[in-house]
């Protein structure tokens, strides 16, 4: 019988595009993804240390000799901000033959070639994309004021 792979859920209480998913919701979403999408077993869920800058929990899950085949987290928003840190993570994942899955983006990392799509999606973590637009600047007001192009 084919053995089910084992995955750890990774929980980080850091907002994703301004929305904070409580840890119990993250836990449920990770578990659902592991069991229904990956047909795997959940090994455990671990919370990232909110006061350290080194993603200590994530790095430990990857580099320690544990039972897990991979890690499931909600979003690429939970990866370290520094590219150098992320490259270290990709390198260690390859070395330890582990994978990472991002539930909301439906992205995964297995091999070096997966780096590009993950790094591309990180563009959305820039504040340029996540800022809320509630009104127009005087310049935008002047340029775009045109009833013909108003649909509402």
């Amino acid at each position, binding site marked *: 019988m084919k053995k089910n792979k084992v995955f750890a859920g990774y929980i980080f209480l850091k907002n994703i595009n301004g929305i904070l998913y409580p840890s119990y919701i993250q836990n449920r979403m990770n578990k659902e993804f592991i069991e229904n999408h990956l047909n795997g077993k959940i090994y455990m869920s671990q919370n990232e240390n909110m006061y350290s800058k080194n993603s200590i929990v994530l790095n430990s899950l990857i580099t320690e000799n544990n039972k897990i085949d991979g890690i499931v987290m909600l979003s690429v928003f939970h990866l370290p901000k520094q590219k150098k840190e992320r490259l270290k993570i990709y390198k260690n994942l390859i070395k330890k033959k582990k994978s990472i899955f991002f539930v909301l983006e439906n992205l995964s990392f297995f091999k070096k070639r997966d780096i590009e799509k993950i790094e591309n999606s990180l*563009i*959305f973590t820039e504040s340029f*994309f*996540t800022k809320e637009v509630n009104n127009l600047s005087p310049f935008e007001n002047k340029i775009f004021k045109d009833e013909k192009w108003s649909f509402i």
Partner: protein
Amino acid sequence: MPQKIINDELFFQENGYLIKKIEDIKSLNYISKKFENSLFKEKKLRNKNISLNKLHKHINKISLNNMRISLIKKINQDHKFSYNYYNIAKSTLDYLIGNEVAMQKNINVSIQTPRDKDSMLSMHSDIHAGESPFEVVAWLPLTDVDSNSMSMFITKPKFNKIINKAVTNSKKNINEIYKKNKKKFKFIKIKFGEILIFSPILLHGNTINETNNTRISMNCRFKSLLSPYNVFSTTHRNIPHFFKPLTIKPMTRIGFNFIRKINEKK
């Protein structure tokens, strides 16, 4: 600007949608073939030679939604599928939103069997659910749709202003507002081989399929990568759940890296 584009622009301004003949037939073939292959791998349809518009004869309503979800999963697992979907609408999308594009992560499939009340989608605007007003919907029929088959309806921008006011302010329910304004909606006529691109700011929906044919369509949202996502509200719906970056141009990469480097030095 070429006259063809000027005409399209005027039509879009007045109607809020365009129906275009698909130029990239290779991509259309890829999409329909992949869809059919995935469909005919489904348990109840395996090894059967069925025309898409007669699908209802081979599947019951209860298993329909599960099959639809399974199809959505299968087609979206194939990265080539989304590139081909973009290609079938590319020239019109380039004109409407630009060529640096964010694309909906999952392409949706809609299957409406004859007289199925459950697949009816009443009058709505996607923007009311927190989506970005900078997006367009690219709606691809896999079966022909006659306007008299009362499939998808959409209103014009000039009427949208009035009906939207009723939706956001009146005490009537959606169906009452729709019925009152029924004449202000147009039923779309579209053939397989064409694509409908529309602004989801405009109120639209569908009615019960009263024909004897199953209607199958796909829909996917596109927007300019660099246009706003969180408009009036911050929702998970746009980022990161809904859109993925499809094309990122070199100068965008260079510009964002410039900001990053300067900030690192601070």
